[in-house]
């Protein structure tokens, strides 16, 4: 029997005393996705990964790989609030007693100066270019030196998205994000990570500038308006969570560091270290969204 270290708070509603069935959707070294239905997902992660929405962190060692425990794609699983069972391989994961990791947003007032805020955003830009993987969408942070397929493809859409947000032109926002969702390699395509970063900046920077959260949510909603069927299932869930301002621990930590001017560098490096290009693409989104919000400040 496996024990659980922590469980994301948004899963509390999903997992009740009623037992539901799920199918193992995909297995990686440190994560295993279980699909419950078209809209719901539970992710088992090893302690090596940070907490994120819909994730359950298993109490195993960091070196232990999930595939070596026996999880396999297509396997049936039975889930309720106490336990996840995989009858085919006799795995049982005990959920009771796990710490709850609160995946909801942490909006706290900050009175740091705008210059400081901008500096922090620039710091993220520098770090991403220096330490990040800029083979994906993150390459757009760089002026002209890098030339790759993604950059050329996204640059116009990104510009349109910026204009859409600053003009509050919902149609333009939707059209532009439609040109981004699902683009790039990976389980979470690069442009999706980028959009997630924009959502993070939209919410946290937007809150700093005193925007009404309902307005921010509306824009977020339009950004992912055309989500269904445009990207992978996992990415879809990730963006839906982002729309609700639910972000992974490294993203939330970085945004809090930016707003409250704490250890931006450390938190940014943490984010950049996330799987492949994902962290860097997301950081690029944060920079892009951050610069945009610094310009727009209060949305009309």
């Amino acid at each position, binding site marked *: 029997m496996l024990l659980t270290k922590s469980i994301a708070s948004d899963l509390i509603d999903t997992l009740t005393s009623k037992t539901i069935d799920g199918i193992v959707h995909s297995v990686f070294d440190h994560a295993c996705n279980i699909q419950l239905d078209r809209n719901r997902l539970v992710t088992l992660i090893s302690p090596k990964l940070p907490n994120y929405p819909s994730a359950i962190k298993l109490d195993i*060692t*960091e*070196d*232990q790989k999930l595939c070596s425990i026996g999880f396999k794609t297509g396997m049936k699983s039975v889930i309720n609030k106490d336990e996840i069972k995989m009858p085919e391989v006799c795995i049982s994961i005990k959920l009771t007693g796990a710490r709850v990791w609160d995946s909801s947003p942490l909006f706290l007032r900050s009175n740091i100066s705008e210059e400081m805020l901008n500096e922090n955003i620039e710091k993220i830009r520098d770090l991403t270019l220096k330490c990040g993987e800029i083979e994906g969408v993150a390459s757009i942070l760089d002026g002209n030196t890098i030339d790759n397929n993604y950059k050329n493809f996204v640059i116009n859409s990104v510009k349109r998205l910026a204009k859409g947000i600053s003009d509050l032109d919902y149609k333009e926002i939707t059209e532009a994000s439609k040109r981004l969702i699902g683009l790039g390699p990976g389980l979470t395509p690069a442009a999706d990570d980028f959009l997630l970063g924009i959502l993070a900046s939209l919410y946290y920077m937007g809150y700093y500038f005193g925007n009404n959260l309902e307005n921010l949510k509306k824009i977020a909603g339009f950004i992912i308006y055309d989500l269904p069927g445009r990207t992978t299932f996992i990415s879809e869930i990730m963006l839906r969570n982002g729309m609700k301002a639910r972000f992974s621990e490294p993203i939330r930590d970085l945004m809090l560091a930016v707003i409250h001017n704490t250890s931006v560098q450390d938190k940014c490096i943490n984010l950049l270290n996330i799987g492949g290009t994902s962290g860097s693409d997301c950081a690029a989104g944060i920079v892009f969204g951050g610069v945009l919000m610094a310009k727009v400040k209060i949305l009309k």
Partner: protein
Amino acid sequence: MIQERIEAANKKVMEIILNGQPTLLDIGIAEEVILGMNKKTILHAGPPIKWEKMSGPLKGAVIGALIYEGLAVDEKEATELAASGEISYDPCHHHNTVGPMAGVVSASMPVWILQNKKYANYSYCTLNEGLGKVLRYGAYSDEVIKRLKWIENLLAPLLKQALKLHGPIDLKTMITQALQMGDEGHNRNRAGTSLLIRELAPYIIQTKFSEKEKIEVLKFIDSNDHFFLNLTMPACKCTMDAAKNIEFSTIVTVMARNGTEFGIRVSGLGDRWFTGPAGIVDGLLFPGYTAEDANPDIGDSVIAETAGIGGFAMAAAPAIVQFVGGTAKDAVNLTLKMYEITAAENNIFKIPALDFRGTPTGIDIRKVVETGILPSINTGIAHKDPGVGQVGAGLVKPPMNCFEDALQAFVEDLETKNLV
């Protein structure tokens, strides 16, 4: 042409390393036995570093040492003094010395005195303070200072007497035995510590100290599995020191970290350091700590891997395989991988699980760069804040650029000599 020269030089270096005879001679006071030390000198682990750049544990240890030496009464005074420029900081490695974790050595600390009998060079290391809140992890509370004083006033004098009665101890043989008893000489020192007690106990009894004091000392050593680490390290140090400065050799003679940077020295490149950022240890944390709490890699103890034990002898220590993936085979594969980057197999340190094959010894920078395989180091993890102590243990790798920079410097050296 040049290849032959390098091979010849490396062969010589390996002969020196393999022929080393580290022997425990005595215990002395740092200021009296270590060259170039005075009251205002603080030696530390790793490559050179300024006060401002020091990480939490190292700063804490410096503060503790200044209080211990009576140069400051409290943290505030010590911090001021530390930053004043009055204190000279120097790596242990510049003084034939090594220190675990923060590796801080100050003037009045007792030190083990070792000699490489074959080449007549000496090395030094402090006595291990035990577990919990200790100076080497940057703790400097009263109990820490008190223990240091106890070491100075009882432990060291008593062991010095016992050693005198016993005579010199051949450490190479003792380390060899420990490897065959499940130690790898870095993260596990239980067998070595046991062997040492067994060897010294009859003589501790014969010392002129009181019953109570003898019991205190024996209990102290017994309570600390890592007591022997502070002998393994200087044993490796005097072995490796004899092999430095051999022209054309690409063998690494020093690896060390100060909590901020990782540094290496290469035999054919003299006293130059090649440094890069110290890594974060990938390992198991003690309950209640998270990766956030961990300080970057710190300590001179990686001299063990430099000399062919520690992580390189992982296959010898099945008891601590949870650090490397969980199975004994993982441990064996880890050791096997190290043969890819080393110049020789040890003639004395043997691994039972590999049919008594010698441990991979003598890291060749060329092989590291060519294969992309970095030395695998077993190590403890210090809390990033001073005074908290050890929070876990695991594996760490040096930054690749140390080896790349060293290789580049090596080639440039040859170019100025018109040899390539």
